[in-house]
């Protein structure tokens, strides 16, 4: 049985009500279009309910709509035709919803209509006469409130009855004149308006009035933008404040379990693989989960209230200047937590070129994985001045945004020419959001993030671990004077010094040393070069790599020791490595460089080709290198080197 309805009709809330937690997310075979499948238990049978993507009509304009329409018509390969349809109509927006209803009923599939948000309609003084409506639609119409859970019993028994009889709807298709005028929908809309008039009692405009009053302000040319900035600011403050506690907990949890495991396993390669490779790698991803969860939760709430459509509306004019559609703004917002969910959320953008431009520039936004890097560099350069730190942080964010807009413009002039397709967006009635739905959606999205990022990250972590571990170096392999130097140290320092030597002689260390000349014009020494190489797949790794390279072990007691060691670091000629010029150059490099393999995997999947992922890697690396080079050389010329 398929669940069908307009976007914003409350389809997902109803789906969650009916299936509870027994639902899962799946892809239609051969597509990246997702849908939710859940079990529905009736008295005499159990039914599989498929939540199809929301659509306005059966003539698709997005990939999601296309798949939904195909699935309904039984044209989707590998998917059997549906036995029945549960059609969700929004009682507060009935006329427009009836257009899709007409198309669906014409398919002749047994149908039950759930008239959702009946309670809200009633509150607003709107009565819907079920008699005439059932007469016109030729199928049972059950008023429900998915949010409150009202009317579900009646809905279930009606579904059971329909599945038993499998009677197609007694629907007389409007004698559509498909060719004699400019719009083949015209007669269907005429029908929808006529049915709406016969069924709706009371003030049909009531639901719109409050919304239009609010929209006077929220879509206002200036106040709208100001309000949007406030919402964005509040979201970020929430993300960073609320997430810090669970992030610390996750960090400690993984630290403790790594210790536990290393205590249980005999020391050696296997123990190191499990603790450093697997636990360390997976922990490095999961630590971002709280931020991502909060972001998704806030976005789900905003979406449910109807505000997100306004955000896209007010941003459209601004975004159009650089060739991005207004609908790219929510993905850009999400990218500040993590590019992976952001790229996944570009699916709302109908036009493929618009979507590709958005995907290509999204990873330039400062994601949370960049923050540890910014923090170290900023502390290194301006440890004594809070306001200078703040300025550099803000600079990092701004640089990412400016670069993304700039590159979007460049792609629009070159590879993906053309203007973004003009905005057409429904501005739904404002309504109270459903906490339950938002929580379920958040859980689902988080799980997808873990699945997506987790599997890739695990392989990458193991690969990186191997590169940083082999070939192995024992104390006896080192030159005599180095052995002597290590022997003279205390137990912990000796262990760290050996670790430093081991990393230096590993594949990662050798590669870093070999490419040092490439990074020398950026002011990087071989240690920073190793850091850049080892963080190729996951940028946050650079901090722990530098820490090992400076002989501090993986996690220095406090960051001050790492900062101290980095400050004391000297070029062979005795000049300090970490000048302001080097620091700024390193910062610029990490703002702009791709340095995230999981994101690339998602880009490849969502764009349908690894070519786009390679292009993304190529242009971002070039941009990062050139910008860091300019930064270093300029700063050095100004005497900051």
């Amino acid at each position: 049985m398929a669940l069908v309805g307009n976007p914003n009709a409350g389809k997902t809330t109803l789906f969650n009500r009916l299936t509870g937690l027994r639902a899962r997310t799946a892809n239609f075979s051969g597509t990246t279009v997702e849908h939710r499948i859940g079990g529905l238990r009736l008295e005499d049978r159990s039914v599989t309910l498929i939540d199809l993507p929301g659509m306005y009509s059966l003539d698709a304009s997005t990939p999601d709509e296309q798949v939904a329409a195909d699935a309904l018509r039984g044209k989707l390969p590998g998917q059997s035709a549906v036995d029945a349809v549960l059609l969700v109509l929004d009682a507060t927006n009935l006329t427009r919803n009836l257009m899709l209803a007409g198309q669906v009923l014409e398919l002749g599939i047994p149908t039950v209509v759930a008239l959702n948000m009946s309670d809200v309609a009633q509150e607003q003084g709107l009565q819907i006469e079920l008699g005439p409506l059932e007469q016109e639609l030729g199928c049972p119409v059950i008023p429900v409130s998915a949010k409150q859970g009202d009317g579900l019993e009646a809905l279930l028994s009606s579904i059971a009855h329909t599945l038993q009889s499998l009677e197609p709807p007694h629907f007389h298709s409007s004698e559509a004149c498909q060719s004699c005028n400019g719009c083949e929908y015209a007669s269907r809309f005429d029908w929808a308006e006529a049915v709406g008039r016969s069924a709706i009692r009371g003030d049909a405009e009531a639901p719109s009035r409050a919304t239009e009053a609010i929209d006077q302000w929220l879509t206002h040319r200036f106040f709208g933008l100001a309000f949007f900035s406030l919402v964005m600011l509040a979201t970020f403050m929430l993300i960073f404040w609320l997430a810090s506690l669970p992030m610390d907990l996750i960090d400690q949890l993984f630290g403790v379990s790594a210790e536990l495991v290393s205590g249980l396993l005999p020391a050696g390669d296997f123990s190191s693989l499990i603790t450093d490779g697997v636990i360390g790698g997976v922990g490095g991803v999961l630590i971002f989960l709280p931020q991502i969860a909060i972001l998704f939760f806030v976005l789900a709430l905003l979406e449910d209230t109807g505000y997100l459509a306004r955000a896209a509306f007010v941003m459209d004019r601004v975004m159009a200047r650089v060739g991005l559609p207004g609908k790219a703004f929510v993905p850009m917002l999400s990218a500040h937590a993590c590019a992976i969910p952001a790229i996944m959320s570009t699916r709302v953008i109908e036009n493929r070129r618009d979507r590709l431009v958005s995907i290509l520039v999204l990873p330039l936004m400062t994601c949370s994985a960049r923050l540890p890097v910014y923090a170290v560099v900023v502390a290194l350069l301006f440890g004594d001045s809070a306001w200078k730190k703040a300025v550099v942080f803000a600079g990092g964010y701004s640089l990412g945004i400016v670069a993304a807009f700039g590159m979007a413009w460049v792609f629009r002039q070159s590879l993906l020419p053309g203007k973004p397709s003009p905005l057409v967006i429904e501005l739904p009635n404002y309504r109270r959001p459903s906490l339950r739905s938002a929580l379920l959606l958040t859980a689902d999205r988080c799980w997808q993030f873990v699945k997506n990022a987790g599997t890739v990250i695990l392989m990458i972590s193991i690969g990186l671990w191997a590169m940083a571990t082999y070939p192995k170096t024992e104390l006896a392999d080192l030159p005599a004077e180095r052995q002597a130097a290590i022997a003279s140290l205390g137990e912990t320092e000796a262990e760290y010094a050996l670790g430093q030597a081991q990393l230096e002689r590993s594949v990662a260390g050798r590669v870093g040393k070999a490419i040092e000349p490439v990074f020398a014009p950026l002011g990087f020494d071989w240690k920073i070069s190793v850091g850049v190489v080892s963080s190729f797949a996951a940028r946050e790794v650079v901090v722990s790599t530098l820490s090992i390279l400076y002989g501090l072990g993986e996690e220095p007691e406090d960051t001050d020791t790492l900062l101290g060691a980095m400050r004391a670091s000297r070029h062979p000629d005795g000049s300090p490595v970490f000048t302001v010029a080097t620091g700024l150059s390193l910062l610029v490099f990490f703002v702009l460089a791709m340095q995230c393999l999981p994101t690339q995997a998602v880009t490849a999947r969502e764009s349908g080709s690894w070519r786009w992922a390679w292009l993304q890697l190529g242009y971002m690396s070039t941009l990062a290198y050139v910008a860091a080079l300019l930064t270093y050389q300029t700063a050095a010329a100004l005497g900051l080197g």
Partner: protein
Amino acid sequence: MSAISAHILPTASVEQTGPTHTLAQLQRGDQGRISSVEVGTSDLSRLKALGLCMGRNVRVVSSGNPLIVSVLGARVGLSHSLARQVNVQLH
């Protein structure tokens, strides 16, 4: 909302009720009936699915770029560039 338009098919013979403007030229509060839509195919299907097609009654909720129109009891936001290609007969 006009009572006649809903029961007859919108053809060329529909009686003229007022001067024709593009949707982009209308001011807030103006109401009328869409007489033709001259948009390319890819954007046309998006407009049509939301009710912006020949024969529908529209009311401008806010003008500017993008602008908001009310159609079929729901609001649609659209770019000025598209609104220029939608012709409306004022009531």
